[in-house]
């Protein structure tokens, strides 16, 4: 078992375990921190696959942006030290049952299909290739622009939604 294999399993284990903790923890702040670990673990997996750019984006956007945003909103809306209510057993069982069944189904499907993939995938694409493709008319220039407009719209939308309404005179 090579070092990289060990690293892979560690990363995968870290992601899954912290994900489980994230959805089960009754302390919402801890939950967010576990999520952070999961995201970092996933970024690690990207690094493991040699997709440095994606990994960097993952860290910048998710870890640096979304996770911080979530923590920020927790501070805004939650009393400190307050615990989330316990999940009723019936609901937990129903959810777990559904999830187990779904997971089993997906694993069965994956097992049937095999998904062997290439054993030696070769080098990952370079960042410059991604950049060129991003701005190529025949590549992803249009979705790129569309997403930029979407982000702008989302930004304005957030401001409008979260804006404190003036009391009606």
């Amino acid at each position: 078992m090579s070092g990289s294999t060990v690293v892979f399993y560690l990363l995968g284990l870290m992601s899954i375990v912290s994900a489980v903790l994230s959805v089960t923890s009754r302390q919402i702040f801890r939950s967010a921190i576990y999520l952070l670990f999961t995201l970092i673990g996933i970024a690690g997996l990207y690094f493991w696959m040699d997709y440095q750019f994606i990994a960097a984006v993952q860290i910048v956007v998710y870890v640096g942006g979304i996770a911080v945003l979530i923590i920020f909103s927790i501070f805004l809306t939650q009393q400190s030290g307050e615990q989330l209510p316990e999940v009723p057993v019936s609901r937990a069982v129903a959810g777990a049952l559904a999830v187990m069944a779904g997971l089993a189904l997906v694993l069965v499907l994956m097992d049937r299909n095999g998904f062997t993939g290439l054993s030696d995938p070769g080098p990952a694409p370079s960042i410059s290739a991604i950049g060129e493709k991003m701005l190529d008319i025949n590549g992803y220039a249009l979705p790129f622009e569309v997403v930029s407009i979407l982000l702008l719209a989302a930004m304005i939308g957030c401001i409008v939604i979260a804006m404190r309404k003036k009391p009606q005179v």
Partner: protein
Amino acid sequence: MNVEPGLFHFLVIGAVLFFIGIYGFLTRRNLITMLMSVELILNSVNINFIAFNKYLWPGTLDGAFFTVFIIAIAAAEAAVAIAIIINLFRSHQSINVEVAEEMKY
């Protein structure tokens, strides 16, 4: 089963993360934790895209681009969701989804 990490292993990690996210989404009642579950679900999908890109079509970049766009949209979604959450908190003094049920029936 092959212990050498390959496509299948990534897919398993993706599937497990996806269903963990589903579990969280189904059981939690707090809007922020539900949002976190959704982020988990999106991430599991991203893992699949990257894995497929790497192990099945290494010459192309489409998987990577999908991931980039999903991340961008997830960021927008998170921002809007948090704006809504804050607004809800302002009006209901709570972010439990069960308190926001005026439209029921």
